């Protein structure tokens, strides 16, 4: 339906919507993040939920301590190679639809520890990330911005068609392989399904 016509009808007291809009509105307005923090970014995440920044304004104040009840994983901090399999496993245990915000320099790239032997160079090597926020750590406003970006992304999703989200696609792969802690490094070093980026040395 044409947006202009919809507004005109609204002025006449007729509310018109689509199942898609209603469905997306419902989902984006009550995202339940998972309650877990990995490093100092988690402190900013906690600050975001408190009264001053108040994540509750966006419908996401219910932090769930179980992946089964959560929609959103905020990877808030350094993902060490020892922790990476557990993060992927938690993501696998979340029910669809599920979203990931990679918060801070470490979660998106390894950050200041990128050249270390023990830190994963970004969680997007193993699981699909919806929003990346740079910063060390990002301020609560940045997390709010990431959250609004995620809501916009949910609003724009189509329930049918080839670009429908993963949870509405029966063929789509929902389980992401958990890396094995090998003798020298994680095996494999990345999941080619979500990390097809060829690493070029310049």
């Amino acid at each position, binding site marked *: 339906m044409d947006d202009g016509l919809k507004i005109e009808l609204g002025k006449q007291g007729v509310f018109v919507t689509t199942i898609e809009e209603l469905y997306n509105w419902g989902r984006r307005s009550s995202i339940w993040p998972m309650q877990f923090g990995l490093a100092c970014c988690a402190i900013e995440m906690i600050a975001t939920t408190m009264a001053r920044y108040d994540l509750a304004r966006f419908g996401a104040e219910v932090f769930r301590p179980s992946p089964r009840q959560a929609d959103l994983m905020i990877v808030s901090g350094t993902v060490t190679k020892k922790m990476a399999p557990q993060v992927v496993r938690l993501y696998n245990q979340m029910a669809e639809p599920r979203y990931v915000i990679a918060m801070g320099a470490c979660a998106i790239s390894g950050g200041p520890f*990128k050249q270390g*032997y023990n830190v994963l160079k970004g969680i997007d090597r193993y699981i699909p990330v919806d929003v990346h926020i740079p910063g060390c750590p990002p301020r609560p406003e940045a997390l709010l911005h990431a959250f609004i970006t995620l809501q916009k992304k949910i609003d724009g999703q189509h329930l049918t068609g080839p670009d429908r989200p993963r949870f509405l696609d029966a063929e789509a792969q929902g389980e992401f392989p958990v890396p094995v*802690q090998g003798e*020298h490094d994680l095996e494999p070093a990345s999941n080619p399904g979500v990390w097809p980026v060829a690493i070029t040395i310049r």
Partner: protein
Amino acid sequence: MGLKTVEEIKAAIEAAVPGAGVEIVPNPSVSAQHSLRLKPETAVAVATFLRGDAELAFDFLSNATGVDWLDKEVAEKVKVMRWVNREVDGVKELVEETVEETQKRIVPGYLEAVYHLFSITKGHGPVVIRMRTANRTDQMQLPSLTPVWRSAEFQEREIFDLFGIVFTGHPDLRRILMWDEFKDHPMRRDYVEPDDFEYEPTAHDEVLKRALEHAARVAAQTGAGQEGAGA
């Protein structure tokens, strides 16, 4: 300050623990914080004395860490007797002479555990004690000091994890930072990191070295002329 000097502590140990074999490792820097090197065989007895002695009363172990000393080549000048042909008053004869010669020898490396002791009751410290392993390949056992100072437990696990020193008598010797399947000891100087180097916008020093090495490896594998690592 009421704390005895390292020499006095050494004398006190030797009076209390016969055959303790404590050595002073001098610190040539300004701090002059000399340390005591314990023999592994008597270390637990000496540690118990240091903790229990009324005057020393080192009841708090604040820090335990490891050091990796690689094999090193030492060049030293040695005087050697040698027969030399020489003309003396127009007559050739063999003369014995002392000549200075540089000889190189390899001093084998070892792993070292370093402990910093304080006394809460006496308010003094630190005193540094050290232990050295026989080598850094197969004889890496040292006695655990966890039975004497409980605070050594996690720190000795960390030394075991990162340096590979095996603490005999430790109640729960497992890796603490790396995962159990991990084989290497990352804080050793000859540790080889996994080759997962990635583009670094401002590579310098160590990272630049790794960038160049990685670029060379990639070039060797692909055979194609890759560009050099960005500096």
